[in-house]
């Protein structure tokens, strides 16, 4: 026969929460509080971005009003029309950016995966040095290295080339991505590898068939960060490209948004921010599943 203790005492002993009735109302109250808190926070986070959207829909005259208006009095697509005016070259910029970013992501993923694999699953002398050398790329803002980099690119015949830019971006995404991939590979228990090898797989097969699915989250993470950084980069692209039809999106947007004496075309800026954001958000949505799980695999030991 079980001795029934008073709920409070029971709680003290087991550490479980007291009476179920209290618990349910408390849960509901907590739930409501959570939702309210969440909405408030979300509103704060989204407000600047929403303003960008509403700002892009205001007419230039309205944007000059003092004091500023909250909602567009009359929706005007003028900023958007100007943005997509072929003379402004926005679509060319998008195309160039997509090319450079896509190449950067592909190269980064391949190189970081390989390097992470090598560093995590093999012992060799100097692996620490290799890791440090690659990681050091993160310790310096690569824009200060622009002049030497442009010298090197000229020597390689890669100056004023989108491929050259992609190579530069890849180099400076490697530190973070190699770090992530190394952690991802390191988290895979030896037993899995040994079992596969015993089953007769070659090392290459083990990598491709067994490991890759396991480190997919890490790959997604690397892909997202490489994408974001390459997509938004400005100064290196400006210095290393001289052909206007090779300019990437950030340069095109900057040219259009900043006018005489530094005047900023706020409507165009807002529209530009929205346009810039869209591919990044798409990528984030697509890769989100892997990516959120990926941080788990990458970081949990």
């Amino acid at each position, binding site marked *: 026969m079980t001795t029934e203790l008073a709920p409070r005492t029971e709680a003290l002993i087991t550490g479980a929460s007291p009476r179920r009735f209290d618990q349910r109302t408390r849960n509901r109250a907590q739930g409501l509080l959570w939702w309210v808190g969440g909405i408030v926070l979300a509103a704060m986070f989204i407000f600047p971005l929403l303003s960008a959207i509403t700002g892009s829909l205001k007419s230039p005259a309205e944007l000059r009003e003092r004091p500023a208006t909250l909602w567009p009095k009359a929706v005007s697509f003028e900023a958007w029309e100007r943005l997509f005016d072929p003379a402004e070259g926005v679509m060319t910029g998008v195309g160039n950016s997509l090319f450079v970013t896509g190449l950067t992501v592909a190269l980064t993923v391949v190189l970081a995966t390989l390097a992470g694999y090598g560093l995590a699953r093999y012992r060799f002398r100097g692996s620490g040095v*290799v890791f440090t050398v690659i990681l050091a790329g993160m310790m310096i803002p690569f824009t200060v290295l622009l002049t030497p980099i442009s010298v090197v690119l000229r020597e390689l015949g890669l100056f004023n080339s989108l491929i050259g830019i992609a190579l530069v971006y890849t180099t400076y995404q490697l530190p973070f991505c190699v770090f992530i991939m190394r952690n991802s590979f390191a988290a895979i228990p030896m037993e899995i590898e040994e079992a596969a090898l015993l089953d007769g797989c070659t090392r290459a097969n083990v990598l491709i068939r067994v490991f890759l699915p396991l480190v997919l989250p890490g790959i997604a993470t690397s892909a997202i960060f490489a994408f974001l950084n390459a997509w938004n980069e400005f100064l290196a692209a400006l210095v290393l490209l001289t052909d206007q039809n090779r300019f990437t999106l950030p340069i095109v947007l900057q040219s259009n948004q900043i006018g005489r004496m530094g005047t900023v075309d706020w409507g165009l800026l807002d529209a530009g921010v929205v346009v810039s954001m869209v591919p990044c958000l798409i990528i984030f949505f697509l890769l989100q599943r892997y990516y959120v799980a990926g941080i788990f695999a990458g970081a949990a030991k």
Partner: protein
Amino acid sequence: MSISSKASGTTSRSRRLAWTGFLCTTPALLLTTTLFVVPMGLMVWMSLHDWPLLGEHTFIGLDNYVRAFTSDGTFLMSVRFTLIYTFVITPVLFFLGLGLALFVRRRSRGSAFFRTVFFSPYVIGFAAASFLWLWFVDPQAGPVAAVAHAMGWPIDQVSWLTETVPGLINVIVMVTWKVVGFQMILLLGGLNGVPDEVIEAAHVDGAKWFRRMFSIVLPLMRPTIVLLLVFSVSGSLLAFEQFFLITKGRPDNETVTAVYWIYNASFKKFELGYGAALSVIMLIILLIVAAVQVRMMKGVGRDD
């Protein structure tokens, strides 16, 4: 016999394995060498010269370094400012990120939505975000002013752009808004490595919540936290665009960061040699800071 030789690592097989490992890193290493190590070497070489972008360069040894520490007051001021900025923003980002991560862990349909919303500012580039923020807080043209006006609240927004402390806070708010989602995601991952019961128990106990967090949960997340801190601190020490575009260093260059000053030297004054020297100094600072942080990681998990 095979076991012992595997252990000693001198068999041809283990040597071949070691080679394989190394070769895997070769492409990454090759690219890094070509486009980082070589330019880096060039830059160190340049730092020993008076090297104007246009014109002749002359070897001056360590003069640039001496100048950085003695006659260039702004550089030291910028380093100090950068350190202050880093010290303030790192815990802000961390604790807010942790708070958001805990918040978003709830098994609710809203979680995925909130997660995305909190992360979304991260996807805009820093320059675009800075411009957006500049407009956002503009005392005449921006939404904050519009709201304040509509509500009848007079806010002194001028100081946000022209005075040191309000300017710093302004930038910190902006960077937090932009970056905290990233920290949240990383910490979410780390939290997922901690058993649920531990966290639940921390919840229920009320007042002892903090203690439980600090003494049990956070130590279990140490690898994640160190990873996070290394990137967060490095990123903050290298802060540039947000100050360049929002406070523009005002007042009197008090809100100029180290990289901002390097940019000024290299791209505004075209003194590449001096800019190079400043960059080398920053690199050394960062390496030291990172080494300290990595040492904190030693002894936990599989790391060298």
